[in-house]
């Protein structure tokens, strides 16, 4: 066994010079990030509703200016100081991106934050009160834990989105896609719901459709919306049309990506804040098997639950107890533990799309549509693949893209979210995301010189 073929020893001797030295600007930027975090953290203990609004506004403004300014400076400088192009240098050796001590620490911090957010929001009281001034401006009422979370989430997508655009500025597909993600998050998942709240309407996130937002088609939720009058009618119409018409039609023409990589906030966070961790998704066949059972299991659960809720009024009493339990456990296990805690907390360990890949019922529906009734495919360019493995490595969904590309086969997989990174990192121009006539989607249209690549083995 040579040194290099055993991973451990390889990493140990390359780690010695993996840390690029930080410049003065980067150090200053990181100091501002740290200051911002410190100001936010100290609010946990030092802020209450007794504190004057003006003081809180100042504190809040200083914290976020410092955090956003530092984050932007660091991220933009890091990428803009180099030349445009694919730069994944040291991804496999840096402690943060290669599941080292920094990666694990970040995972623990993120996971803990989500545990507190979902189940011990009382601990965040100071932080929530700190955000009252902002919430008053945007929503016309005091902040709650979800407003604070939304602020963090949106800031993360905007700051890290700017960094992602800088990193992938050689690719128009990535620039445009990231821009749309940032716009959607800020508009549809932050400012618009706040505006609804200010107008005393339901604070609704129009970019999250059923079954990802699992209660959106529950009879109770729709009732609530309808009571809100004209805006309520619009909202109900939006969700019904979104789920029943837009989803199948757009997926037919563009594949699942129209939602997962261009609209959805979960995908948005994954592709911006999580971009440095996309390579940590598991590519094994075993992971694919688990994925298919889990994601379709969740889909069945939410479909059954939603259907039952619609029959609640004619349901015998004996069934209601178990049904409420089913609903409660879905909210706890899937809605909170999976989508939130694991979904983001495990970014540095399992890659950025843990939730999208293993749990999201919306992704499951889109995936089935993409697999069986869509014009989308990733085309493999003839016999040009050199089997290097960059496509598989940087696939956040854990698809072994290379196994198709090296056979000259097109890639049609339910899980593919169409982020386009396989095509971006391919050094030989082998992959391209395309929408075309459906009948020959699998057609590899490849070189005459390739003999008999069609059978297995």
């Amino acid at each position, binding site marked *: 066994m040579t040194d*290099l073929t055993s991973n451990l020893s390889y990493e140990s001797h390359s780690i*010695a010079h993996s840390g690029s030295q930080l410049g003065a600007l980067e150090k200053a930027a990181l100091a501002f990030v740290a200051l911002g975090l410190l100001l936010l953290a100290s609010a946990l203990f030092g802020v209450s509703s007794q504190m004057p609004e003006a003081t809180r506004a100042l504190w809040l403004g200083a914290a976020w200016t410092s955090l956003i300014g530092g984050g932007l400076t660091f991220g933009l400088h890091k990428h803009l100081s180099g030349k445009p192009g694919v730069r994944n240098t040291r991804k496999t050796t840096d402690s943060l991106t290669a599941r080292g001590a920094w990666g694990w620490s970040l995972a623990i911090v993120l996971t803990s934050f989500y545990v507190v957010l979902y189940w011990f929001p009382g601990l965040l009281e100071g932080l929530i009160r700190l955000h009252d001034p902002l919430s008053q401006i945007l929503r016309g009422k005091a902040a709650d834990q979800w407003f604070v979370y939304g602020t963090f989430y949106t800031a993360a997508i905007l700051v890290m989105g700017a960094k992602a655009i800088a990193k992938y500025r050689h690719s128009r597909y990535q620039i445009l896609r990231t821009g749309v993600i940032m716009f959607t998050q800020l508009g549809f998942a932050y400012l618009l719901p706040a505006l609804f709240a200010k107008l005393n309407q339901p604070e609704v996130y129009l970019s999250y459709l059923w079954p990802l937002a699992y209660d959106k088609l529950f009879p109770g939720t729709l009732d609530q919306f309808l009571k809100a009058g004209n805006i309520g009618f619009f909202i109900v119409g939006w969700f019904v049309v979104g789920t029943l018409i837009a989803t199948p039609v757009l997926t037919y023409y563009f594949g699942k990506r129209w939602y997962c990589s261009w609209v959805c906030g979960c995908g948005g966070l994954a592709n911006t804040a999580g971009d440095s961790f996309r390579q940590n998704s598991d590519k094994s066949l075993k992971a694919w098997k688990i994925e298919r059972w889990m994601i379709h299991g969740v889909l069945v659960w939410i479909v059954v639950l939603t259907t039952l809720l619609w029959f609640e009024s004619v349901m015998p009493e004996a069934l209601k107890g178990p049904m409420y339990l089913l609903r409660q456990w879905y909210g706890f296990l899937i809605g909170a533990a999976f989508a939130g805690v694991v979904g983001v907390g495990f970014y540095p360990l399992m890659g950025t799309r843990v939730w999208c890949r293993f749990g999201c019922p919306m992704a499951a529906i889109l995936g089935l549509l993409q697999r069986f009734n869509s014009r989308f495919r990733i*085309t493999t360019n003839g016999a040009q693949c050199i089997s290097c493995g*960059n496509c598989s490595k940087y696939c956040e969904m854990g698809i072994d893209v290379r196994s198709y590309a090296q056979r000259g086969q097109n890639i049609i997989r339910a899980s593919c979210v169409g982020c386009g990174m396989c095509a971006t990192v391919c050094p030989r121009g082998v992959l391209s995301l395309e929408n075309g006539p459906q009948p020959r989607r699998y057609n590899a249209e490849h070189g005459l010189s390739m003999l008999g690549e069609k059978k297995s083995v």
Partner: protein
Amino acid sequence: MILDSDLHMTQRNIVIIGNGVTGVTAARHIRKRAASDRITIISGETDHHFSRTALMYIFMGDLTYEDTKPYPDEFWTKNRIDLKRGWVEQINTGTRCVNFRGGHSVNYDELILATGSKPNRFGWPGQDLEGVQGLYSIQDLESMEKNALTTRRAVIVGGGLIGVEVAEMLLTRNIAVTFLVREKLFWNSVLPSGDANLVGREVLRHGVDLRMESELHEILSDAKGRARAVVTKSGEEIACEMVFLTAGVSPNVALAKNAGIASNRGILVDRFFRTSDPHVWAGGDCAQHREVPRGRRPVEQVWYTGKIHGEHIAANLCGEEQPYKPGVWFNSAKFFDIEYQTYGVVLPQPESTQEDFFWEQSAGRISLRVRFDEAGGAVTGVNVFGLRHRHAVWEHWISAKTPVEEVMADLGAANFDPEFYRQYEPEILAAFNAQFPHRATQLRTKKGLFSKFMENLFAHRGTPLCAKPEIL
């Protein structure tokens, strides 16, 4: 159709030396045809097949060694392909036996030599010093990894694909690079001058100290037998801690030669990849064609040809009589941030019966070159830099001898760039019409899969492949 069971009543013992792309492709395709044959792949380099073209990404930290394995480790047991680690010392064609360093041996009924090649060393003084190496194997990468720790400047000798890769690798570790290239323009033995200039500019843009028309004279040693400087033919001394020899590779023929198998530069093979011994086959980097197909070279040292050789060996070894017909030539590379693809034949200078069309984007980082026959206008080859073009489309155009006017009119059909990328076809066409007014034409096919052109191309391809996605 001949059934496997009819052809080989008894199982054969097939031994393959070399687990690179040729040996592994041969093994896979033999297994498809022959369920009962015993297949053994021998390698001294690694336990498992990995993608040699990805070596640079391991060093830079884009990929781990594990990531470069095209097949998961279970693949080999699942397909009953035995893997054997060890260096072969000798082949005995009389007893059909392969002897390992250290005394062990295995017998074979059919032997495939896929031993690859090694970096050229042209007898430079000091070429065997510590710190002097090529980049071909995992072992080369290991020594590079070790030496990089104490290197501030490295000198690369020989301008080709590997040299550029080595330069890119070293720069990611903040090691300064001096690049000695014998030719006047970069890789000018293969690329026409416009293309060579474009690549040269890209190398310079990344901060490489590129010295054209500069040759290695000798490598100087320090007291411990390590390289400390190179001296060029013009007498300049350049201090450095590492020297990379990247002036091409030559086939590994020693094993075959010692076994009495006819060899020249490479191991000589006929159109069916048989060597001079009836039970020994050879392919990939180490093989040399006795009959060279038109427009090809006798020794082909490219990933893609290795794959095609492997497929042919498998077919022939299983009795299918498939003479080497490699089809339209293609290749690709990446020079720092500029991708390169080529289809058909584009020699540095056009032949006397050929016309040459060259378009370059104003910033000088994207270009397209088309060669075609002066008389009928049939296209014969294309080079693209900074553009992605469709393999199937160019293969069709070249093999069908399509006139250049039609190719230009349908140029969008070849566009394989990602969505939303700027489309240069109108610009390219305007340049073409200005250069060849008597062949002037108009763009009729834009990028995408919906065109009439694509319809027809697919119609040529026969039934679509509707297989379920395969994992193994």
